[in-house]
């Protein structure tokens, strides 16, 4: 039996091993993903991002607990129970490559539930808040039959927005006292929110944060999502039917307290209705194709670079690099030289 077949039969150890193979970028992992890929595309991918310490992990813990609530086989909002996977990313050290992956500390309530699978991963040098292989892991979970996959990013600052490309639904977690109304109108992380969450709602200052976010939303002109990738427009979200404002999703604001479990059911409902919105408006397919296009582009770039690198002799490369270091030629001239004189 191949590894992929074991994964499809629900073998958890095989799944865990496959995740490692994908994470390490191995040939074996790629073969398994090739086999599994036709079975992907069913899971609802929910991204959870926000600054460090806003309570992302604790909130994921509560959300998954609610979704897996064992009451008469239904979850906390009365739906059929779903299998849930969590991919939690924490940063790698830029110096040693090591990492402390501590998100499980907050997710201990989920232990012992066979319908939940949590996997921690280190960012391994990626800067967008995810690791370069996160999408591969998500595909494996998707094929393995997990209905909902929550992806928790590293504690994100202002520009770690890769999650919005990967997820169908992105939750941006804020906490009181982290920024004023100018922060709220800056470009970046707040723009990518499908749902804004103010966690730690028992803390002082929650009204101020809510007001700042609300006025940000009022200032916003709802625009279709267009992702810019390496300066190129990736996908123009063409309005499918005429009255586009009706089909525009205005990010709602939710207040939660993950420690006490306040506001969790409402948030689960909201995630559910965003999924329905995407399905009803065609956004689901659009996001799916945008995501796959961006993944394909990245893979193409990586493969092209490594193929090219294998053809250029190392000493030739070092010689050109040396000319750049001694300021004989500019980096652009070096690129032209290395690519064989052709204009890039």
């Amino acid at each position, binding site marked *: 039996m191949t590894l992929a077949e074991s994964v499809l039969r629900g073998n958890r*150890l095989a799944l865990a091993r496959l995740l490692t193979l994908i994470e390490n*970028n191995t040939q074996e992992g790629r073969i398994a993903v090739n086999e599994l890929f036709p079975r992907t595309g069913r899971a609802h991918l929910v991204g959870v991002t926000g600054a460090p310490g806003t309570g992302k992990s604790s909130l994921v813990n509560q959300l998954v607990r609610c979704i897996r609530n064992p009451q008469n086989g239904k979850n906390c909002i009365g739906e059929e129970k779903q299998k849930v996977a969590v991919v939690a990313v924490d940063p790698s050290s830029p110096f*040693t*490559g090591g990492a*402390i*992956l*501590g998100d499980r500390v907050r997710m201990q309530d989920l232990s*012992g539930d066979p319908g939940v*699978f949590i996997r*921690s991963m280190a960012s391994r040098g990626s800067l967008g808040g995810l690791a370069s292989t996160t999408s591969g892991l998500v595909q494996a979970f998707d094929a393995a039959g997990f209905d909902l996959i929550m992806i928790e990013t590293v504690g994100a600052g202002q520009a770690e927005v890769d999650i919005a490309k990967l997820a169908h639904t992105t939750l941006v977690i804020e906490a009181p006292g982290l920024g004023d109304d100018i922060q709220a109108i800056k470009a970046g992380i707040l723009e990518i929110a499908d749902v804004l969450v103010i966690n730690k709602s028992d803390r002082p200052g929650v009204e101020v944060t809510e007001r700042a976010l609300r006025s940000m939303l009022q200032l916003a002109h709802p625009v279709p999502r267009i992702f810019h990738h390496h300066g190129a427009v990736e996908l123009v979200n063409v309005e499918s039917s005429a009255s586009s404002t009706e089909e525009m999703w205005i990010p709602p604001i939710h207040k939660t307290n993950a420690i006490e479990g306040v506001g969790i059911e409402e948030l689960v409902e909201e995630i559910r209705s965003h999924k329905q919105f995407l399905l009803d408006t065609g956004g689901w397919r659009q996001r799916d194709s945008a995501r796959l296009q961006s993944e394909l582009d990245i893979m193409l770039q990586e493969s092209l670079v490594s193929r090219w690198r294998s053809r250029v002799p190392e000493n030739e490369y070092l010689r050109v690099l040396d000319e750049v270091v001694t300021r004989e030629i500019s980096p652009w001239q070096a690129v032209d030289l290395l690519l064989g004189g052709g204009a890039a």
Partner: protein
Amino acid sequence: MTERKIRVLVAKPGLDGHDRGAKVVARALRDAGMEVIYTGLRQTPEMISESALQEDVDAVGLSILSGAHMALVPRVVELLKANGQEDVSVFLGGIIPDEDVPRLKEMGVASIYGPGTSTEKIVEDIRREVRKE
């Protein structure tokens, strides 16, 4: 192509609340370039083996200062085996009386560390054990 990272689960089974040592070791392993999954206090053997499985770790480090090691460690080792993870090395640290060491090693614990152990030694041991496979 990324190099293969060593993944280690650091856990504190049982009820004692002193996780300073576990954190020092976790930090040392991190600085040695390993990926450390830290699960925190008051873990049951079931929780530890489940985490070890989901995270597909190469090694499990347990820290016990409560004296309950003869009850907890065999259970963890057993569960790892039951899950098909008999190749995962188990390391133990904390307050472990000398007379218990032979029996623990017999059960399959790779190394046992008392107070004053240098973190370099732990890093070295884990690297060696994991490479053996």
